[in-house]
């Protein structure tokens, strides 16, 4: 759409103006690292952050989300009566600042998952109220990143606005009309000129050499690699190492599996049915009544996660299920990594170097 210029010293003013109408969240510094959080003072906003502990998925699919409330009571006939009312949680207009391109790819996948097939209104109602303001990644977050391998180093079409740091100003690209409206009435926001656009081109093309590749194969080869390596010895090895703690799936921007549970109040008559993040790495995930567990071993669960990331999600939704953000690698206590696993599989299968 259109390209604008926002002077850096005006950013706090821009954020404050948005706060008048929206909940504004973005990366802030915490004692454990960067995290997406509510911005009260624009100075908190850290647009040159590296990576956040959790991806912004927590705004799209909250850790705990009420689906409906219920009330049960004894009716006139002495039998149990039920009343249920749907709840749509967290649908206030929210602007998320500073979303990295990897995380935007995660959001793109979520949008497909929750809109395709059965439309999940709880997600979609909230989604419509969220404004994504991306930030172009000009430097790798750290050693764990492998976004270049996964092809997530450019912004996918999910942003409303997308910012690129150009020194003393930001380029602001508008992705949607809804995003463009956020820029209206700010006199300091100017349309970019022709020479500005050239400068943006330079910034974008010069960033690529700074990012390294970690995979021995191309992203497009991971589904085939995982097919070939389904019976690999590697999974046993990883299964022995894995602690089945579920950290990897919690921090993953493409993990969307959830559990559904009922939470009662003290009367046991009223409560809420909620969905909470779940993890395929936990023992109970595929356990059915009667005690049969379809993924009893940790090896089978580790394999399932990698299969989803590199193959299954693509088979179902057409997008690869890993953004290369590196969060699972940072969170893993026993250093099980996606690039490490795929490369080891590549080696065990004695495949040629990737193309």
């Amino acid at each position, binding site marked *: 759409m259109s390209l604008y210029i926002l002077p850096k010293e005006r950013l706090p003013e821009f954020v404050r103006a948005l706060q008048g109408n929206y909940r504004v969240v973005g990366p802030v510094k915490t004692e454990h690292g960067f995290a997406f959080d509510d911005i009260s003072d624009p100075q908190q906003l850290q647009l040159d952050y590296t990576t956040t502990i959790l991806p912004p998925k927590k705004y799209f699919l909250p850790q705990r989300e009420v*689906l*409906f409330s*219920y009330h*049960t009571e004894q*009716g006139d*006939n*002495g*039998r*149990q*009566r*039920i*009343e*249920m*009312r*749907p709840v*749509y949680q967290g649908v206030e207009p929210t602007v998320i600042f500073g979303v990295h391109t990897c995380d935007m790819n995660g959001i793109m996948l979520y949008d497909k*998952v*929750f809109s*395709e*097939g*059965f*439309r*999940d*209104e*709880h997600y979609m*109602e909230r989604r419509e109220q969220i404004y994504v303001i991306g930030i172009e990644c000009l430097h790798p977050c750290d050693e764990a990143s492998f976004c270049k391998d996964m092809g997530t180093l450019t912004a996918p079409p999910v942003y409303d606005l997308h910012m690129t740091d150009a020194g003393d100003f930001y380029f602001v690209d508008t992705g949607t009309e809804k995003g463009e409206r956020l820029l209206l009435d700010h006199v300091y926001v100017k349309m970019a000129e022709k020479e500005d656009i050239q400068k943006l081109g330079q910034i974008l093309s010069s960033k690529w050499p700074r990012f390294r590749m970690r995979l021995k194969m191309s992203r497009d080869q991971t589904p085939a690699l995982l097919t070939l390596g*389904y019976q690999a010895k590697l999974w046993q090895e990883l299964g022995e190492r894995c602690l089945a703690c579920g950290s990897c799936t919690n921090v993953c921007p493409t993990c*969307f*599996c*959830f*559990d*559904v*549970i*009922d939470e*009662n109040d003290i009367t*046991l*008559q009223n*409560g809420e*049915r909620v*969905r909470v993040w*779940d993890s*395929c790495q936990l023992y109970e*995930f*595929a*356990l*059915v*009544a*009667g005690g*049969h567990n*379809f*993924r009893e071993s940790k090896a089978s669960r580790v394999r*399932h996660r990698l*299969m*989803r990331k590199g193959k*299954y*999600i693509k*088979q*179902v*939704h*057409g997008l690869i299920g890993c953004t290369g953000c590196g969060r699972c690698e940072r969170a893993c206590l026993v250093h099980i990594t996606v690039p490490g696993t795929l490369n080891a599989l590549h080696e065990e299968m004695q495949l040629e170097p990737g193309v």
Partner: protein
Amino acid sequence: MLHLHENLKTTTTPLRYDGHTSVFLPAVATIEDVKTETALEKIYTVRLPGGQNLGHVPGQFVMVSVPGVGEAPISVMSSPSRTGETFKLCIRKAGDLTGVIHLLQPGDQIGIRGPFGRGFPVDTFRGKDILVAAGGLGLAPARSLIDEVLDHRSQFGRLIILYGAKNPSEILFRDAIAEWEERDDVEFLMTVDRPDPTWFGHVGVITTLFPHVEVNPYKTVAVTVGPPVMYRFVTMELLGKGLTPEQIWLSFERRMKCGIGKCGHCQVNHRYSCQEGPSWTYAEALAFEEAL
């Protein structure tokens, strides 16, 4: 790409509420009758609001809720031919939710979502011999097909029912079984793993019944419903009878939390059993490693 959601069809959801719809909100249904079947199983007759027809096909399931306790997938026991304003569920007491369901009485309300999933393609079964192999509680989902066949008897060939129960006290649907044994147009064979002094019938696992039936592989479809351990062995027997993997239907039990192909629990490799299943042909199942 989206073979996943080809045959989306559900009658009870989504319900509209204040201009919103929620695929998670159950319809408020009423239990009309409870019949104790065995020490573990009860049969519930359930009525949707306004006596709305469930609109299911054999082999589909519904999500049953008791607010405050939880929700679980339960196969529909009634055939569409015997579903009017009510339908039946046969529920085994196996956990917290089903434990509470077993305390419910006629008049109590429960939540129902669905029906979900792909059932058995009965239309393609017409004109063919039907072989049903059911183990344990698998006879409940199998009945949705058996009764459909019985109610349109002339449209199908032979009806062969093989049923295996753990022990005589767990035998389900004794009335129906008596009828099947009586009828000339039903071939019914039953076995128990562990006999007791009351038992004079066949003893052994369900596969021991196969030598006693003749099957014409040229025009037979087999439907297998039972515990996971049963499938591998029953499938081998059916292949041994000359059936091809395309002629063998299986129903996959999986943990399910949403019923709409999102929560991830029921995934068999990349496929969601709640949507693309729970009924699969053995040929389809062969294509994924986690199936059997």
